[in-house]
């Protein structure tokens, strides 16, 4: 019994950083209608910056500082990116937007390589969260529980932001009809920058959160962006709740896949996505595109 519980919790751990990353991607897509390939770069920046800030010290306060300062710093970079580049391509077709964000992805990728090198880096978990708890006959790392907790809190904060604040109403209104929103007096360009900054913040937060769990090396940006795409497409582009469901599905498929059919495991997430889109061409909680 506890064996299944631990398997389920490992899946939840994987789902947690996936959800945080995909929530940012899907939020940005919902309001800006841009599919941002460079989102993966911001995630990688988060993870890399955490390794620099924390260093090798198994130390308490630096980890907490990283968790707070890194997402804010990367979010500022996101704001600059939106203002200087993305703002110019909002009216263009999807293809131009995809190529522009891919170009950014390439530039950021080499930039990270220059700054942090090509060797794999790692971060120790904060000393408070080191060790593991006993669950029945098995053990489970405390940090993984913490990651799950952060993802849940992030989800709740996002929900409250979108449902309960004026900013959230404006973001949701921008998803529905941005022209009406603009004519009603909202500064839509400013709103877009704000949404993009929040999206970047989530990407970097996911990166920091995942840093102690994965090997932080070049290629992290490419692997997370594919997973985040799949998660947000399964859930329905633009839907944060969908991203949560998508992250759970993908994490479960991965975890079960590794256990039952290791050689076919990498194929599972693509099969899951194809199957979902075959049944619902706009994702589980998405709305049909016109």
């Amino acid at each position, binding site marked *: 019994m506890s064996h299944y519980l631990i398997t389920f919790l490992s899946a939840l751990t994987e789902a947690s950083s996936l959800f945080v990353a995909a929530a940012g991607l899907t939020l940005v897509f919902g309001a800006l209608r841009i599919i941002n390939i460079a989102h993966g770069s911001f995630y990688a920046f988060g993870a890399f910056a955490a390794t620099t800030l924390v260093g090798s010290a198994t130390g308490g306060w630096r980890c907490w500082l990283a968790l707070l300062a890194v997402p804010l710093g990367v979010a500022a970079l996101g704001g600059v990116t939106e203002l200087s580049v993305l703002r110019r391509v909002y009216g*263009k*077709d999807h293809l131009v937007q*995809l190529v522009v964000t891919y170009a950014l992805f390439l530039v950021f990728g080499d930039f990270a390589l220059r700054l942090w090198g090509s060797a794999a880096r790692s971060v120790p978990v904060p000393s408070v969260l080191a060790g593991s708890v006993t669950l029945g006959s098995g053990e489970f790392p405390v940090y993984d529980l913490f990651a799950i907790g952060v993802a849940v809190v992030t989800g709740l904060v996002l929900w409250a932001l979108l449902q309960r604040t004026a900013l959230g109403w404006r973001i949701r209104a921008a998803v529905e009809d941005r022209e009406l929103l603009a004519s009603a007096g909202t500064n839509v360009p400013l709103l877009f920058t704000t949404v993009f900054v929040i999206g970047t913040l989530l990407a970097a937060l996911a990166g920091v959160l995942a840093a102690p769990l994965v090997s932080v090396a070049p290629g992290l940006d490419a692997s997370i962006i594919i997973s985040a795409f799949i998660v947000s497409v399964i859930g329905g582009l633009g839907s944060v709740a969908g991203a949560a469901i998508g992250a759970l599905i993908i994490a479960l498929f991965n975890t079960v896949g590794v256990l039952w059919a290791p050689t076919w495991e990498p194929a599972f997430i693509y099969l899951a*996505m194809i199957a979902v889109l075959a049944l619902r061409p706009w994702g589980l909680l998405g709305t049909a595109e016109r």
Partner: protein
Amino acid sequence: MATFHKKAARQRALAGVIALIAVLAVAPTLLSTAALLNVQDAIGLALFACATNLLIGYGGLVSFGQGAFYGIGAYTVALAWMHLNTPFWVTLVAAPVIGGVAALAVGLLALRTRQLYFALLTLAVSQLLYVIVQQQESFTGGADGVFGPMLPSFLLNPGDAYWFTLAVAVIALLALWQITRSPFGMTLRAIRENRDRAEALGVDVFRHQLLAFGFSGFFCALAGVLYVIWGQSANPNLFSWTESGYPIFMAVLGGQYTFLGPALGALIYEQARDVLLASFSDSQLVFGAVLLVIILAAPDGVAGLVGRGRGLLARRWPTLAPARQAVAAARQPARQDSKQDGQHETVAQ
């Protein structure tokens, strides 16, 4: 008046293309083997890019998974040789057919989705094949790919391999060009411009798009065969999403709204990549930055930029106005803002 200039412009374009083919045909006598291989690679990629552009530029369907059919073409040759010892001439014909049929099957599923969902579903299909080919080592050779004497001996001679590649690519591009000019191609463009209106006029949108997907898969697979002639091997990377990305960048770089724009993009990309790799340690950074500047400065690609440059020239010297009209008329499908774009433009300053 207008038809006269249109005809003149078309003759000029035709003369340009014939001159280009002539230059490419004598290249083996002028270039070193290494440089020749480079051009040969670019010719294969030009076919790949133009075949992909049948979907992107003409159909308005951004497929991020054409690498799937490129890979199917290459692996048809390699696996048929490895398991059945099938002669190359058989697989040369079989590969595009298999690619086309596979594309029809994928299209049945993918064309139910729209826009970004379509892009990401096609991406998932190519990634699915990529991981399967990597994992099923006993059948596919795994991550190392397939190597061996799978080509007839005359294709091992660099000059002959080059000419054969050029001939196949020219014939294929002529066929593709005929498809874009046919009533089918016109209807495909009408669907791109306004799907609802085309539907209201009684066009079966799904069938047209499915057929376009099949044609594209056919020619992408043929480009995959050309890859085998160039690389004398097949490897799983042909299926990956980055490989699917190349023809898209080539189309955007060269100009997706002209027939040969993507081919131009392929030639530019191939040469530029070598220069970049040789001169910069951060080649991705430079490539990305160049791509960014081109996209922001010339959203219609290099071919579009040439057209615009001529327009600018004509505005300065109004006596050239008739020529300008001719150029504008001769330019392949004129770019018109589609419905969705109009929506965005009001808010994005």
